[in-house]
């Protein structure tokens, strides 16, 4: 038997034929004689029995036994993810605000309160997405960005290339570790790890705000659709915090659960749902584009303004599979009378117990479609996302 990532005998693609490959940015290959970059938590993953896979050059945990149990822990209790592979970039300079207003499609001028976070896309001149990222506002001259791991090099090159004209310093903080503690009980269980003097302020953080806590940075953000924190800390603190969280009953969670959680929350994955050939308007991210003020020039603006007026712009939708089976990335969608589309992220939803997907489909007014799975057409219904948020199923099943 073979699977689509590697066959179980370890032979890539030996059988040929159909393959439903995951996106190159979410493609795991089994580790073999190859050593990738390792985060400060690596030894802890091994100790916890993780199945280690290669993720964009990093040796990362796929799961620690059961991906579904990890997923449920985050929906019902609390889980911790090692996200140290993600890239933290600090921007500093008198014109940092002006620079970011030009660099990204959302408008950092919206950020007026200390620690406030903004989700945005960074576009190329053609309006394609170079990366999606979060910017934290420290002050008009200081911002922190968190960008994807798989796009690190091109992001840093792009940011640096444009920063020069604004005299902004771009400093990658590769020495820092980062974890995401997520779930309805995440903050309660993680609070004892935070230095006493900062604990009350951390607990009082509103959603989508962050704060410095000595040499830590704590933000009430995440990628799961649950409450929780993302915590940046010096690498030296990583092991101690990990041990304390596990001892407190927080479940260690791998990239597998991270993917199914974010899919249920209908949060885009770079490289799957959008890339440099796709604009935010065709990836369900128009809400992150700040069109006003109309005279703000940002990279890619002209291109996406043209697309904004186009009537045949593709839709980006959530799908619920009504037949039995599992939707997977790249499966073809057929919408009778309208054309064809493609699943950009598909999988099984542990919370709903059915298969769900995000997909790019032809323009038009319709709410049903079919997906080609192993030569058969299965019925799907277009649903309003998110599928799941804060532990609750949000669609009609």
């Amino acid at each position, binding site marked *: *038997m*073979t*699977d*689509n*990532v590697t*066959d*179980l*005998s*370890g032979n890539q693609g030996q*059988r040929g*034929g159909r393959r*439903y490959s*995951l996106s190159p940015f979410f493609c*795991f290959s089994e580790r073999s004689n190859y050593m990738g970059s390792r985060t400060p938590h690596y030894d802890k993953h091994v100790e916890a029995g993780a199945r280690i896979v290669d993720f964009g050059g990093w040796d990362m945990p*796929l*799961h620690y036994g*059961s*991906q*579904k149990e990890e997923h449920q822990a985050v929906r019902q209790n609390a889980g911790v993810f090692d996200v140290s592979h993600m890239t933290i970039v600090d921007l500093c300079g008198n014109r940092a605000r002006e620079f970011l207003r030009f660099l990204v499609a959302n408008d950092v001028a919206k950020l007026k309160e200390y620690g406030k976070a903004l989700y945005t896309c960074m576009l190329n001149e053609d309006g394609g997405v170079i990366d999606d990222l979060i910017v934290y506002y420290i002050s008009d001259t200081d911002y922190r960005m968190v960008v994807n791991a798989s796009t690190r090099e091109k992001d840093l090159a792009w940011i640096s290339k444009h920063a020069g004209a604004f005299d902004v310093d771009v400093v990658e903080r590769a020495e820092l570790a980062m974890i995401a503690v997520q779930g309805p009980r995440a903050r309660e269980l993680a609070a004892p790890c935070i230095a006493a003097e900062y604990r009350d302020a951390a607990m009082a953080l509103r959603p989508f705000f962050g704060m410095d806590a000595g040499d830590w940075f704590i933000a009430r953000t995440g990628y799961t659709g649950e409450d929780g924190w993302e915590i940046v800390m010096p690498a030296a603190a990583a092991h101690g915090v990990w041990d304390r969280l596990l001892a407190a009953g927080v479940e260690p969670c791998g990239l*597998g659960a991270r993917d*199914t959680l974010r899919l249920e929350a209908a949060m885009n994955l770079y490289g799957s749902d959008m890339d440099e050939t796709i604009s935010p308007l065709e990836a369900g991210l128009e809400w992150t584009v700040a069109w006003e003020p109309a005279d703000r020039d940002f990279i890619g603006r002209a291109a996406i303004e043209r697309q904004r007026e186009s009537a045949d712009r593709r839709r980006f939708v959530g799908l619920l599979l009504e037949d*039995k*089976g*599992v939707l*997977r990335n790249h499966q073809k969608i057929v919408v009778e009378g309208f054309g064809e589309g493609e699943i950009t992220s598909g*999988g*099984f939803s*542990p919370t709903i117990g059915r*298969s769900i997907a995000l997909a790019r489909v032809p323009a038009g007014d319709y709410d049903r479609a079919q997906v080609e799975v*192993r030569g058969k057409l299965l019925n799907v219904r277009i649903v309003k996302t998110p599928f799941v948020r804060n532990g609750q199923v949000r669609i009609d099943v």
Partner: protein
Amino acid sequence: MSELPGDLLYTNDHEWLRREDDGSVTIGITGHAATSLGDLVYVELPEVGQDVELGGEMAVVESVKAASDVYAPVAGSVAAVNEELADDPEKINADPYGDGWIVRMKIEGLDESELMSPDAYQQLLDELDD
């Protein structure tokens, strides 16, 4: 890795076969295969009565991670399928050699030279671990 059942035959593709008293064989995937795939969420089974050729696609198992074909380790016709997997595919993770069986096939004969003993399969697994 737990002990392999000694009364089964195995394949390179991580399937197992059990010879039943009536001459049919029961087929499933090994514990190694189930662990590699991760939690199973869906199993597509063949029709009872369907003829399957050696190496032909016999079933599809889908995990949280990926879809995988199960290829027939013998030629024959499908005598029974494990209907319980439709509602509870995780039986394969929980009990790959028992409740997690997939297909029972009527066969003409079994060429054991193409299959592996438990010892030979264990050796294959040991090599994969290296």
